[in-house]
Structure formats: structure tokens, C-alpha cells
């Protein structure tokens, strides 16, 4: 079972449209598919803007993981196979099979460790593919996927140049090389270095958020450090650019040639805005260090959506607006991965570019 995540950079960037296109093509190819989401998806109207939203159409046989309360809201008949006992705001998540085709509302596991459990349960039913539809700009649970399609567009950033820049920074994070490292029990963060001997020091805190924490880490690393040592730092799951900046300011000269291991590109992107993350990676490289990730998730494709909701203050409601067709794609054609508008290129193109076979 290959797990494909469809993550967005914001609300209304086209996650569901992308997911729906994948399903459509998958049905044409007679693939056995499963679907879940890391939030709530398939509602008729946007929870915030009140504008209509695309919904998911599932055919018979599709395996679904969704919260119990969503079953009644779906026009498809879903036969419940088992209850995962994972609680959500909309009841427990059940695994079901579409008995008669129709529209569905999906609210799946909204945390990474729950997605792991759901994946295990779904595996039993042997689907070829599991699609994990995103929610809003949520990314964290997507570390449990085998590949990611990123949906972005005018709803995230209306200026095409800025959007292109940001998308490029995001793709940089996904292209960081995989780190090779020793394990230290369950300890997520530690420093590992070699002079004449190998040394290991666990990090005191499992978060690296404030500049004070960055400074603490710097002290931990640089004390007793001989010149010309080689080593790496396994950073905890959540770091901020602020803390890393401080850390590097204090230690960069002493640890030239070392690798900085981020947990994965998704949590790296959570450390700040994509712009600042990009600048941080750049700085690490400038200082003669190597930025790597302990876990790599391939970024398969980027879909761009020209739609954006515009608030009409007079009428006190949101209105649907669109950037000119092709404007966003042309700005990003140089990125080393496929970038396209699904509505323009169609489901087959999407499938070929992201799944391939």
C-alpha cells in the first residue's frame, strides 16, 4: 500500500480537487484505493468563508477511514468493517467500504500517531493506494506518508512572484539529503562527535524554540570540543529558525563540516515561514555545515490553484475570485518538480506526474 498525502499551504488551495482527480483516474485504472483525511473534508460549504467546496465522489469498493458522524452526511452507503476506537470531535474513526457509490464526507485521524494506527488497520484490506487528504495548511501528520503532493495557490499568496519564491523554498526543504545516523534509544535529540573517541551527548530538552534554548544547545555542544572534530547533531522534532540562528551564531566556527539533522522536511517547514526556513538552510550551507533530514518524504508534485476568496466588507461575505489561467504555473516552471493546475491539465496528467505507473 503506497500512501500519498495531499497537503495544502492554506485553505482553498485545491487539496480536495487534487484528491478527487486522483480518485477519478484511479477508478479509470481499476485501482483498489483507500482514502482518509487529516481533518474534515467533503463539506458542501467552507467552514469559514461559506463558499461552496468540491466534494469527494467514491465508487463501490473504495475503503474509507472516517469519523462515525460523517457516515450519515454522506450520500454513499458505507458498510462499516471495524471501529478503530480512535476518538475525534466527530465520533470514533471507523473503517468502511463503499457499498453504493456517492458523495462522502471524510474526517480522519488528525494527528501523526493516529494516522500510523489507521494505516495499519487499512493495510488489512490490501488497497494499492491510500490517499490522505489534507486539511487547511496542516502538514504534521503527512510525515507518515510515502509521498506528498503539495497544493498551493492564490488563496495562500495572491502575488505570483512571492508564491513562486515560497514554493521554491518549500521544495528545497523536501530535497534535503537523507542523513545517516546512529540511534540512541528513544532519545530524539543528541550530539554525536568524534575526536580521538566517539562522544554522545543527549539534548536536555526535546524542543528547540527560544533563542535561549539555542544558546543552551550551543554551550552543550561547544564545551570540551577539540579542534577539527567531526560530528552531527540530531535535532528534536520541533525547532525554530530563531533557536537555530542563535545556535549557529555561537558554534558555527567550531563545528565546520558537521551535519545538522532535522527530523523531516515537514517539521522543518513548521519552524517558521518557508521564506525563513529557506534562508536558514542557505545560512547553514554558507557556514560550511550540511543540512540533512533523518526522514525523507518525496515531494511528488505541486498543484497550483488560481482561486481565492475575497472578503466583501460591504456585503459582509466572501466572494470567489480567480487569478488569470496559467499565471501561477508559468512562474514556477523552473522548479525541479512538476507544477500545474489540475483543472487545466486534468486527472491523467496529475496521475502520470505524481504516481507515474
Amino acid at each position, binding site marked *: 500500500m503506497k500512501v500519498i498525502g495531499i497537503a495544502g499551504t*492554506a*485553505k482553498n488551495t485545491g487539496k480536495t480537487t487534487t484528491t478527487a482527480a486522483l480518485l477519478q483516474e484511479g477508478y479509470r485504472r481499476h485501482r483498489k484505493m483507500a482514502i482518509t483525511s*487529516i*481533518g*474534515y*473534508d467533503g*463539506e458542501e460549504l467552507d*467552514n*469559514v*468563508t461559506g463558499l461552496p467546496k468540491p466534494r469527494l465522489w467514491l465508487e463501490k469498493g473504495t475503503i474509507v477511514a472516517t*469519523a462515525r*458522524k460523517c457516515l450519515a452526511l454522506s450520500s454513499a452507503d458505507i458498510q462499516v468493517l471495524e471501529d478503530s476506537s480512535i*476518538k*475525534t*470531535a*466527530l465520533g470514533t474513526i471507523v473503517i468502511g467500504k463503499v457499498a453504493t457509490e456517492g458523495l462522502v464526507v471524510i*474526517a480522519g485521524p*488528525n*494527528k*501523526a*500517531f493516529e494516522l500510523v494506527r489507521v494505516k495499519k488497520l487499512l493495510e488489512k484490506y490490501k488497497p494499492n493506494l491510500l490517499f490522505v487528504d489534507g*486539511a*487547511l*495548511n*496542516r*502538514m*504534521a*501528520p503527512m510525515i507518515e506518508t510515502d509521498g506528498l503532493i503539495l497544493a498551493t495557490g492564490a488563496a495562500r499568496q495572491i502575488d505570483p512572484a512571492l508564491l513562486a519564491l515560497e514554493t521554491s523554498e518549500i521544495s528545497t526543504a523536501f530535497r534535503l539529503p537523507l542523513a545517516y545516523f546512529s540511534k540512541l534509544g528513544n532519545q*530524539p535529540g543528541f550530539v554525536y562527535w568524534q575526536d580521538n573517541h566517539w562522544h554522545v551527548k543527549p539534548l536536555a*530538552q*526535546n*524542543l528547540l*524554540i*527560544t533563542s535561549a534554548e539555542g544558546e543552551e544547545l550551543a554551550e552543550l555542544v561547544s564545551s570540551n570540543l577539540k579542534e577539527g572534530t567531526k560530528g552531527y547533531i540530531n535535532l*528534536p*522534532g*520541533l525547532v*525554530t529558525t530563531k533557536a537555530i540562528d542563535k545556535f549557529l551564531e555561537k558554534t558555527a566556527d567550531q563545528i565546520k563540516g558537521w551535519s545538522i539533522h532535522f*527530523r523531516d522536511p*515537514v*517539521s522543518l517547514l*513548521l519552524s517558521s515561514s518557508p521564506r525563513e526556513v529557506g534562508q536558514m538552510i542557505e545560512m547553514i550551507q554558507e557556514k560550511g555545515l550540511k543540512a540533512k533530514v533523518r526522514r525523507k518524504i518525496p515531494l511528488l508534485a505541486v498543484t497550483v490553484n488560481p482561486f481565492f*476568496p475575497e*472578503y466583501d466588507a460591504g456585503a459582509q461575505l*466572501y466572494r470567489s475570485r480567480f487569478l488569470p489561467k496559467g499565471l501561477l504555473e508559468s512562474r514556477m516552471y523552473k522548479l525541479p518538480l512538476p507544477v500545474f493546475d489540475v483543472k487545466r491539465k486534468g486527472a491523467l496528467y496529475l496521475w502520470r506526474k505524481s504516481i507515474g505507473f
Partner: protein
Amino acid sequence: MVTCLERRKILLVPLDPVHDIGLKMIRRGLDKAGHKTLLLPPDLPSEEIISMMSKEQPDQVLISRTLGYGVAELLARFADLADAAGLRDKMGLVIGGMAIRPELAAELGFDAGFGPGTSVEEVVAYVEGRPYQRDANKVKKTKADLTANYTYQYRHNAIGELLDRIADGILGWVQGKTSPAIQRSRLRDNLWDIEQWRLGNINKDFTEAYSALCDPIAEAYYRSGEVHPKTRQLRAEEIERLEAYLTDTKSRMEPAKVQHWEEGQPKVFIQYGTGCPFMDIAHIKLSEAWGADGVVHFDPSWGARTEGFIGDFLTHQEDGSVITPENLSWTKAGLEEYTLWQVRAHRGLNTPETVVLAGKLGADLTKINIAYGSLAAGTDPARLTVDGVESIKMAAKYNLPFDVVTNEELAGVPAHKAFAGMLIVAALGRKLGGRPILQPLFCYSPEVMISGQMEQNYIDFNAAKIKALRKIMDAPIWPGAPIGFLTQTEDRVQSSMTTSLHAALAASLRVDAISIASSDEAYSGGPIVAASRLDTLTAVKEGFRFFGEGRVEATSMADRWADEMVQNIEKVLKDVADAPSFVDALYNGILGSKEEGAYPGRGGRDTIQVE
């Protein structure tokens, strides 16, 4: 109080720059239940909160944030940070605030979401992992009995004696007299089987005997199915839509209350009668949803001047909803079980039969007033006296309390004369085993316009009326109808305001019920708008919230006028008692003269028969 084993640690996080009142209320509830709480200052950056969560390791993190565009992404990123920090399998993440619903909580990556209207108890239950019994905390509504706490004892002995004498006189006078209305009412009572009617079985004996007692218009209906020229039957698709509307609306209904202080503030009635029963039902449902306790059926004025009722599910092209068994039955079907329903009988040629129909179709209250009906509503005094006594007997039989409204005040009859008439009817009710409710007007009547009792304020004279009635009889009081009559203008804000203030005054006087108008009722010039009903219901609710157990205070004038009123009532009653009969008193202007605007009616004159 939870034990140390059940004690939870809760981190409360106001993400809004300023609004953390809700969280503070929840904190108080959690503290009271014995949990450990930690309230962060508002508007901290997400990273700092995550850091706090990691250090404190609470069981639950409650975040409050009002939603707007872009806020959803902010909250979703927060959930992501918690996930990336490895905290999501260690603690619960809950979001609360305006526009938050469970769907949104799921979407944002939270475990639960609490929106507006959430009670503190609900959040405490969630934190403790108990199922929350929403029903236990939902507004509970039961049908109120307005007459339950009253003995109907006279408090003023001299007036009591006079009233008894007059009532006995009336009962003697009606002896052996009958009318077409009484005959119809007895037919309806004896031969009209509601279960058979519901099954669509027509009782031919009833129909034949009944139509013989009707005016040509009603008779035509029974002869050929012809309905009144200003009405038409609802079409099949309209009925289908009504059914669909009712099914949908009733499934969503939740009881609501206008009162802030349940025991002390009056029940609130609205009046409906758009002409269209479907529209009436929609207005009723809205009013119920906004907390109305009761509804009053208004029928067209021609209904009071026509002998006999027609049938069918009818809509009327003018004001007033026609009384037919079908119309009443549909209205009843639309009502919530806790809503009081009054069908007015009070004034016309079908008074006793209206009571029977109302009783058989499940109404809770009716309305009867012989004096008003004969002096200001066009019915012959003799006829309405005979019919009125029968109506009261039927009301007693069908267990319907009835109000006695002094609408003749609007024609110009001074309050003390109108009250004398009301008290006579109440005394009759008392004698016949009925349960009358006194309904003085809370209005800017011609009497006060001329004599100036409301030049200073609207409080004193209205308060004087209640005080005076309380000095005479221990009976329920339900000012109306509607309160603030003739103080409302075409300005909806003004109308709502004056209604609210009159309601607050009524509450201060601890009366049992009030009837309120919509904010456009006085000047609508046609059907009123549903939204305007919500105007006054909301305004009254605010008034009740504002005053609570506090009171609007009258000046000393109220007591002085109340004493004067009692003396004047006694004088009037003496004159009535000394008159050859009550009916003579009505004809002779003792309870309201032509100069005062009271004209004995002519409807049904010379129709009294000897039994």
C-alpha cells in the same frame, strides 16, 4: 469534587488578543470541580505555548479563539507544532470560541470543539471524560398553569357581595333562555366526535342539524361545500410543504426562555392571525424558538358576526385566521408540547361553540367577556349574556381557564367601568367552576389621554390597575392585550423598547402572563413580518434580564389611583346590582356609556329563544 486520582491538569490558552472571559468562566468551573488549572496570558506566540505545554505536561489544553479568515490556518499550524513536538499523544487539544463547531475542530487538528452556547458544565464533563448529558442542562420547558396558585377568594367583602348578587341575578336571568349558538355548541359537544372526524367520517345527523342553525354563508358550506368568499382551501402541494416544514422545523426545535427569573417573571404570549394557517404556524415556530410561552389565535371579525362555523383547511385573504376544525387542528399539530395555546371565544355569535371546539381540539385557554363583547364588539348584550354563561360552563367542562379582557377601554370606557364588567364575568366564572384570569389593558387608552393619568409616566396608572384588582380578588392577572397598546409607533426600535418596558413593569408587578405585539403590529397595515416578532421577544428578554428580581417602582400616585379605582368599581357595581338586570345595565351604559364610546351591539339581537 474530584479526588486526587481524578484530578486533571488543564492549561487554558486565550489566543485572542483580549477576549478570555469564556476561558475564565471555564477556569472557575474547573477549579470548583477540583482540577488544577493554569491560565496563560492572552496572545502569546504559538511556539511559546508549545514550550509551556511541553514543560507543564497538562492533560488537556483548552484554547479559545474567535474565528476569522486566516485564523483557521493559525490554529492548524498550532496543532501541527504540537504534533511535531511529540505532544499530541500525551495531551488533549480543545478549541472553543465563536463560530467553532466539532467539524471545524476536526479540520483544525483538535480533539474537540465548543461553540457559542456551550455551558461550563459541558467543558468540565469533557475534561473529566464523562459523557455530557446535554438534556440535563438544556432549557426545560413545561406548560405553565396560570391559575394554579389562586383561590378566587374576594379580598374586598363589599365588592364580593355585590359581585355575587349580580352573578346570581345573571344566572337567574338566563334561566330557560337559549340561542342558536348554544344549540350549535351543544350539538358540537354531543354529536361531533373528534376521533371520527379525524378519520374523515362525516356525521350526517350532526351536519344536518348544525347547518339548520347557521347563517346562509355557513349553511352553504354544509350544503354544497362552498367556502366563505374571502377564503380558499389550501392546495395539496401546500399541505405537503407544510408537512415537510413542520417535520424539519420540529426536529430542530429547542426550548428557549424569555424569562431570566423563571418563578417571578410572567409568561409571554404572542398573537397570531395572519389569515394563512401555514404562515401562522411559521410565526408560531419562530416565536417558540425565541422563547414565547404561549400563542393566541386571532380570528377575523366577520367570524364573530356569522352564525356558525364552516370547515376545511382555509386561508383567508385578510387579517385573522378563520376558525375551522381543520385550521385549529393543524395549528395544534404545529405547536410544541410546552406551548400554551389560547383560542379566543370572547365576543361574537359563536362564543360557546368556540369554547367547545377549542376544548375538543386541545387548546389550553380561551377568552370570554360579556361586557366587552356587547359594548365594544358588536354583539347584542342579551344574546351575549345568554351565550356567555353557556361559554363559561363549557370552559369549566373542558377545563379551559379563560381570560376576561377589558378591550372596551380602547373604545374609551374608563378602566373602573371596564373592570366592573370584567369582575362580573370573573364572578360568574367563579360560581360556575371556571378559572377566570383578569386581563386589564396596559395601554395608553382614551381615558388617560383625556384625563392625563399618563402625562408623567406610563407606570403609575398601569400599576394602579393591578393594585386595584389585587385588592378585590385573589385571581391570576394577565395584562394585555398587547401590553403597551397605543404607545407603539411605526418605528420598530421604539415599538420594541416600549414593549420591553411595559413587560418589565408587568414583571415588577409580579403578574402571571403578558401578551406582546410584534414591533410592526400597530402599523403594519397588513400581515406582520416574522422578524418583527423576534424584535419584541428579544427586547422583552433583555428587559427581563436587566431587571431580574429588581423592580420598576411606581410613585405614590399608583396607590392613590388604585384606591380611587376600587371605590369607583364598587359604585359601578352598586348601580349594576340596583339595575333591573345585568342586561339592562349593559343597555343603559352603567358599564360604559355611548358618551364614553360604548355602544350596545346589535349582532344576534332578538335571537334568544325560550328553551
